[in-house]
């Protein structure tokens, strides 16, 4: 293998390649601006929806985003920033455009691509969710949609990615409360009479009583889902702390001390939308009733049993 030949060949192709490199960069310098304009023109329709009274938009090219959800950023001159964000939803990626005004308010949310399970995932594209986001500041909490947690978490993570960038970009310090995702209010389902046998049939033990004035606070252990249904070896009952006014036998307060049922489902009982129903109910009243959380029957009933265990004590 003579070396002269190799050098000749290598040089030959090197020259051809560099000529093609020059040609490519030349053509690129011609077409790049047009492609850029196309990119903005395509987005312009959505950008105009977010910032109706601005028509001067410029792409922001270099930005840091470790979540990888920000596809592109456009600056609406004098009005704010628009983020094209995308996250993997339940089945397909969700692509949205979030508009944030200069004073840190979300002015608009346009869903560009959404193909998740109809009825659940699609809620992200419907008005209630969008209205719950629009108007919020860049540090407020955002509410998930109960029932389509996967898609709405994806949507909210994408929106938060845009907001975190906006905050660093504008130097707003986010005290972290914003990115806390508040759990959604659970939907209430069947109504159950406190005195119904369903509520009183299972043994519930009062483990502690504290008296102060005419109020008594009971600590009650009541078997929930994991003991009755789950049947795991180490299943433990849920522990509630219930305060009753002994004179009027009206429930003054109720609180979950220890939740041992399945995470994500059982702990919905801790939501004040469910617990608040007990306050003011009169233990002896035959038709006092409470709506249990749909899909969380066993744990809700364990709360009712705990309350009924304090009767007559």
């Amino acid at each position: 293998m003579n070396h002269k030949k190799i050098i000749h060949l290598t040089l030959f192709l090197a020259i051809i390649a560099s000529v093609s490199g020059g040609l490519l960069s030349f053509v690129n310098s011609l077409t790049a601006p047009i492609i850029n304009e196309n990119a903005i023109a395509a987005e312009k329709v959505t950008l105009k929806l977010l910032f109706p009274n601005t028509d001067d938009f410029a792409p922001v090219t270099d930005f840091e985003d470790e979540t990888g959800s920000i596809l592109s950023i456009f600056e609406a001159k004098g009005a704010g920033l628009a983020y094209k964000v995308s996250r993997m939803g339940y089945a397909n990626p969700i692509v949205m455009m979030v508009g944030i005004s200069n004073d840190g308010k979300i002015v608009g949310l346009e869903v560009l691509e959404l193909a998740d399970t109809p009825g659940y995932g699609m809620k992200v594209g419907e008005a209630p969710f969008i209205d719950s986001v629009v108007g919020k500041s860049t540090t407020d909490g955002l509410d998930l949609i109960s029932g389509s947690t996967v898609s709405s978490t994806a949507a909210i993570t994408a929106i938060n990615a845009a907001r975190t960038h906006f905050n660093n970009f504008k130097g707003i310090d986010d005290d972290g409360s914003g990115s806390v995702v508040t759990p959604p209010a659970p939907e209430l389902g069947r109504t159950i009479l406190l005195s119904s046998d369903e509520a009183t049939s299972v043994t519930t033990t009062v483990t502690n009583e504290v008296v102060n004035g005419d109020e008594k606070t009971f600590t009650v252990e009541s078997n929930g889902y994991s003991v009755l249904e789950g049947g795991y070896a180490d299943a433990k009952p849920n522990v509630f702390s219930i305060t009753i006014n002994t004179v009027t036998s009206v429930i003054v307060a109720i609180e979950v001390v220890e939740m041992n049922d399945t995470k994500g489902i059982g702990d919905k009982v801790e939501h004040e939308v469910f617990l608040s129903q007990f306050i003011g109910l009169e233990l002896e009243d035959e038709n006092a009733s409470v709506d249990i959380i749909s899909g969380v029957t066993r744990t809700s009933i364990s709360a009712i049993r705990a309350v009924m265990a304090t009767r007559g004590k």
Partner: protein
Amino acid sequence: MQFVAPIIFLGLLGGLYASSYYLNLKTPKPEGCEDLDVSCGSCSISSCGLHPSNKEIIGEVKS
């Protein structure tokens, strides 16, 4: 200038490809593998190294 970077970069890559192609062409096949038949049918991708039309360059290697 923005034209210089691609020219140098591609020149290097082109040279790398040419030299590796040539070197590979000239390394003889291990003995006993000369007449390996890949049993790929009469496909007409003439750019593929195994195509009959390219057989004669590889043949040179034996010299």
